[in-house]
């Protein structure tokens, strides 16, 4: 029964929460993964942009983004480097809200971040209450090392899809691979199917 034995008693290999995908272990801290220097993004010039496949663009500056209706969500995070962190609390704008009223036939999304990072996913995975642009973590502003001022949050996929320092989403008719998807990592990245690496 859960709770009798303290987590960690058996070491990382015996973690057995039903919320833990295969091959993952639980952490209580929040590891910082980074592929480059942490961008220091000025809120006075911050802008979030959605561009459609026809070239239509919608942008928000920081005050406009803060004025959008926000959700408080508690989600589990699964990193492809095998740690999982359960029940993390975020505040952010649902991508459904950002896409509301945007006309598109796009099936794919390419997410861009300050600093040059990119990641791709099907647009359907950003819809339906499954993805947010988050600016609050654990009751406070999201810190730069965890992706602040704002990051994408797509908790049902491995965490590399949840781009830190997000600055925009391109809606595309064709799929284009992002920073890690170009280089061996799985194009979709479902942690429950252990989709870590590409098949070829």
């Amino acid at each position, binding site marked *: 029964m859960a709770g009798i034995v303290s987590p960690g008693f058996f070491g990382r290999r015996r973690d057995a929460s039903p919320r833990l995908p295969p091959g993952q272990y639980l952490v209580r801290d929040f590891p910082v993964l*980074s*592929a*480059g220097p942490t961008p220091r993004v000025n809120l006075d010039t911050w802008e979030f942009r959605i561009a459609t496949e026809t070239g239509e663009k919608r942008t928000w500056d920081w005050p406009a983004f803060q004025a959008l209706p926000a959700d408080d969500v508690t989600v589990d995070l699964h990193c492809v480097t095998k740690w999982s962190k359960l029940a993390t609390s975020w505040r952010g704008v649902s991508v459904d809200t950002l896409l509301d009223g945007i006309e598109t036939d796009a099936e794919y999304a390419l997410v861009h971040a300050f600093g040059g990072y990119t990641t791709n996913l099907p647009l359907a995975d950003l819809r339906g209450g499954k993805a947010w642009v988050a600016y609050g973590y654990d009751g406070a502003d999201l810190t730069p090392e965890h992706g602040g001022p704002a990051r994408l949050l797509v908790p049902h996929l491995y965490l590399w899809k949840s781009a830190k320092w997000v600055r925009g989403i391109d809606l595309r008719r064709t799929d284009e691979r992002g920073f*890690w998807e170009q280089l*061996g990592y799985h194009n979709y990245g479902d942690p429950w199917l252990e989709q870590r690496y590409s098949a070829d």
Partner: protein
Amino acid sequence: MSVPLDGNAIAGALGELFAVDVSVARLECGGCGMEGVVAEVVVYIDAPGVVARCRACDNVLFRLVRAPDRAWLDLRGVAYLRLRTTST
């Protein structure tokens, strides 16, 4: 905070792929043209893969992803890599 390392941090991983000591190889950044040796690049290892960047311009020089049975090496950010070989 993750603190970036220098190119010596990837000598072992690259040594597994190359039969020569890559840390002393010369390279030119494809972004800004700066020349240096692999040991001097800025390396981020706290990521799904290893990312090496130019010390002058932050351009991604190379990326290395290691799966249990495969490795991917991307060198598109490097203009050239000059490796020392035995005399022929």
